[in-house]
């Protein structure tokens, strides 16, 4: 997913074997995980600061960390993820479904049964048809999540195009509380998709339009309240939390609620945390404050943890000058991660592979494009691209804005004629994800959904994933059929055997050669708490959501 100061979630999906292991480990009838880790005090309201408002407070539309950190507390789906730190948080468990699905031998039919007595936060009973309506709503609104796997449901792709007739592959029986999902092709990653907020269940009556101003009721432990778009919102305890969900993985959350406020200035956020007038900041502190914060609060209220993330400048291969591989390679030679790291406060680990460490398929190798401005200039000259106009896109978050100014200056130094275009963070990814925008290059990033290579390569670089709007593949390499075929072949593998992992490693190398990205780093994320928070027991660091607010607690 994408996020504030760039935290975009990867939602690629694969590996029947991984899923099988996950499903088997969960058992056939499971009330799901216990309440969240951490043994701190229950209750109290936690004050959270964000730099930009979530792209949407609508589970069908949001695709950023800022959005999912909140939405994951409100809109569980048939399946959900454990509220536990580390890799345990990537485990798929039953959510609104009373057990993991029964999957047919050919992997194409998935059967679920809803738990009894489920209610939305407004007291309305949850019906099986609400799930079907939620998926149809996602497709009707041309959500960025549409192409993840929901078009692999029978009738899904057709409904996405025509918006008529519903998704025929979902059969919901309200009386029996059963849901049958039929897939076009078996996909072992489907369980992961059903655990994402995109598959969060909302009432069937929810209009198929952006509900950010007035988010619909959900079934999670918390509910939205007092939403002031672009300013603030609250999460309060769900007054109608279903009895049948108590003790399940969804029943997680120590705090009574969360007040989220937007403050564009990272420096002021730090001051508020330091003064204990706020409890947590979603984004990393500004670069020049990190050393002082680490020195004073390290281990007590502050720590940094690695994330499986990739930070890069996308290079649009559909438009000049980056339609020329020499120019793209020149851009790669021009990136200096040491320079960018000073803007980011030293939180970047240098990276030169698409896959970050921790994701199967990652292999440490010599940098294909070591920093060399002279070489970059020579390549630009060789390509005849000197003086070509380039617009560098970025959003208005402080570190991103400064990073793209660095990038524009770098491109100018190697002979291009670059200028900067800054877009509000709330609309940034939607803007560059619109193929018509023709964004030539700009800042981008991706945080994993779960540790699988397709989560990065299939979602972000597969030429077949290039669509009109809602793109995550900003390289717009739709014409690279050969790469598409190779990625599809890897995606189709049911297990991540060593041979398959090698396939992904080879794909990573191939993509680097084609230089669709100018990749520079993997980022550490900070946890910075006020004195009120129980830092030792309730850090909330999560494999998927980056921070799981359900795990936060006060002293």
């Amino acid at each position: 997913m994408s996020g504030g100061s760039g935290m975009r979630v990867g939602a690629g999906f694969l590996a029947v074997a991984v899923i099988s292991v996950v499903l088997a480990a969960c058992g056939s009838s499971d009330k799901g995980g216990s309440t969240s880790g951490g043994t701190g005090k229950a209750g109290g309201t936690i004050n959270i600061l964000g730099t930009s408002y979530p792209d949407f407070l609508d589970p069908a539309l949001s695709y950023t960390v800022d959005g999912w950190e909140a939405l994951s507390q409100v809109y569980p789906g048939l399946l959900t993820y454990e509220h536990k730190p580390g890799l345990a948080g990537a485990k798929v468990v039953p959510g609104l479904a009373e057990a993991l699905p029964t999957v047919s031998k050919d992997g194409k039919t998935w059967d679920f049964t809803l738990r009894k007595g489920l209610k939305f936060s407004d007291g309305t009973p949850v019906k099986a048809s609400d799930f079907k309506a939620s998926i149809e709503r996602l497709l009707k609104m041309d959500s960025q999540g549409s192409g993840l796997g929901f078009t692999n449901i029978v009738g899904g792709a057709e409904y996405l195009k025509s918006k008529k007739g519903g998704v025929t592959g979902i059969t919901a029986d309200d009386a029996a509380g059963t849901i049958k999902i039929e897939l076009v092709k078996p996909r072992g990653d489907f369980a992961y998709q059903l655990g994402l907020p995109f598959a969060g269940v909302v009432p069937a009556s929810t209009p198929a339009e952006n509900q950010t101003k007035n988010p619909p009721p959900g079934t999670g432990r918390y509910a939205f309240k007092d939403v002031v778009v672009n300013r603030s919102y609250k999460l309060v305890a769900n007054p109608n939390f279903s009895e049948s969900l108590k003790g399940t993985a969804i029943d997680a959350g120590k705090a009574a609620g969360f007040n989220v406020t937007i403050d564009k200035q990272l420096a002021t956020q730090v001051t508020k945390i330091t003064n204990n007038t706020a409890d947590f900041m979603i984004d990393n502190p500004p670069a020049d404050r990190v050393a002082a914060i680490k020195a004073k609060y390290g281990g007590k209220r502050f720590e940094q943890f690695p994330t499986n993330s990739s930070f890069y400048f996308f290079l649009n291969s559909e438009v000049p000058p980056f339609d020329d591989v020499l120019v793209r390679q020149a851009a790669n030679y021009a990136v200096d991660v040491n320079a960018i790291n000073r803007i980011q406060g030293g939180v970047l680990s240098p990276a030169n592979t698409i896959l970050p460490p921790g994701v199967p398929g990652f292999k440490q190798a010599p940098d294909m494009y070591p920093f060399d401005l002279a070489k970059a200039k020579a390549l630009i000259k060789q390509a005849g691209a000197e003086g070509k106009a380039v617009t560098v896109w970025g959003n208005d978050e402080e570190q991103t804005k400064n990073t793209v100014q660095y990038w524009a200056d770098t491109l100018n130094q190697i002979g291009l004629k670059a200028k900067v275009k800054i877009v509000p963070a709330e609309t940034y990814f939607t803007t560059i994800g619109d193929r018509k925008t023709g964004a030539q290059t700009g800042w981008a990033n991706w945080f994993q959904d779960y540790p699988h290579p397709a989560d990065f390569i299939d979602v972000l670089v597969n030429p077949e994933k290039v669509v009109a709007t809602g793109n995550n593949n900003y390289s717009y390499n739709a014409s690279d059929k050969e790469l598409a075929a190779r990625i599809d072949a890897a995606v189709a593998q049911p297990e991540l055997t060593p041979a398959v992992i090698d396939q992904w490693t080879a794909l990573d190398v191939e993509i680097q050669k084609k230089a669709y990205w100018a990749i520079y780093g993997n980022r550490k994320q900070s946890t910075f708490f006020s004195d009120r928070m129980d830092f030792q027991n309730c850090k909330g660091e999560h494999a998927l959501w980056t921070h799981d607010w359900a795990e936060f607690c006060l002293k």
Partner: protein
Amino acid sequence: MSSQPETDFSFDAAGLVAAESGADQRIEGLSPWRLAGRRLRRNRVALFFLVLFVLVVALCLAAPLYADWAGNTPDRNNLTGTLVRGGKKQFIVTPDGKPIGPGFSKKYLLGADQNGRDVAVRLLYGGRNSLFVGFASAVLTILGALVLGLCAGYFRGWIDRVISSVFDIVWSFPVLLFAIALGTALALGGLHLGFITIQGDSLWIPTIIIGTIFIPYLGRPVRGQVLSLREKEFVEAAVAQGMGPLRIMFSEILPNLTSTVLVFGTLTIANNILTEAALSFLGAGIQPPAPSWGNLISDGVARLTTAPHQAIVPGIAIVLTVLSLNVFGDGLRDALDPRAKVRLR
């Protein structure tokens, strides 16, 4: 009948001034402008601030010369470079993101910003941009106010009603919010008016926005004065002579508005510079990486505790410039307004 500008001066006034200055003999009558000039020359404070303002403008115009001398450009990032200062090698920007502060060195005299750019160089180039927007938008405001005010005041009737209504509508918006909304929208998409296209990052975008939104603020007083001047005898005489409305407006009435325009002009420039700074601070004015005093302050505010020079230096520049214009504008008004100056012994 001649149509010299109507003033409050008379032959006696000239004599009184002569008496004040201690002259023994009666002097020839001085033109109002010479009298105003004399009053202005006596106002040392106003002159001081005029000189200060001219100095600020001159420094900003000399930005390329300074940049050459300092060996830096306004947009050149230097994140990993070092500088020898006081015999010690220092990072321009430390690995944890702290930029170097002001010091006695040719480069980075006023320190560096978060991207390792020279603050002094950006300050001067930023001044060029801010002053350009301030001046150009003031010219736009004045021209627009004069044309619309003249038409409204002279023609009256439905023309006056229409123009006054437009003034009222624009005036009813909170001007800064209006400017922010326009600035944000046009910064993204640019301005497309028929065959005229202005890119979103052009200085003309904030210029046009600021110049336009303040037209009613000058247009109304101009309209009021024109309504009054229109009833004077010299205008009647011009009408009787068969002069057309345009000629009357521009050759009879307009000269009488000169002192108003001059005084309001300086205040408008100061106001527009401040507005540009506010818009750029909020990201709706001059777009990065182009420097302006406003966006320099915006960058610096985020580092107030670790690198205060980034915000303080452009802030001082704005204060000095706006203060100079305001004080000089006050002095100019005093010089042009004899009612405040003429004393009877």
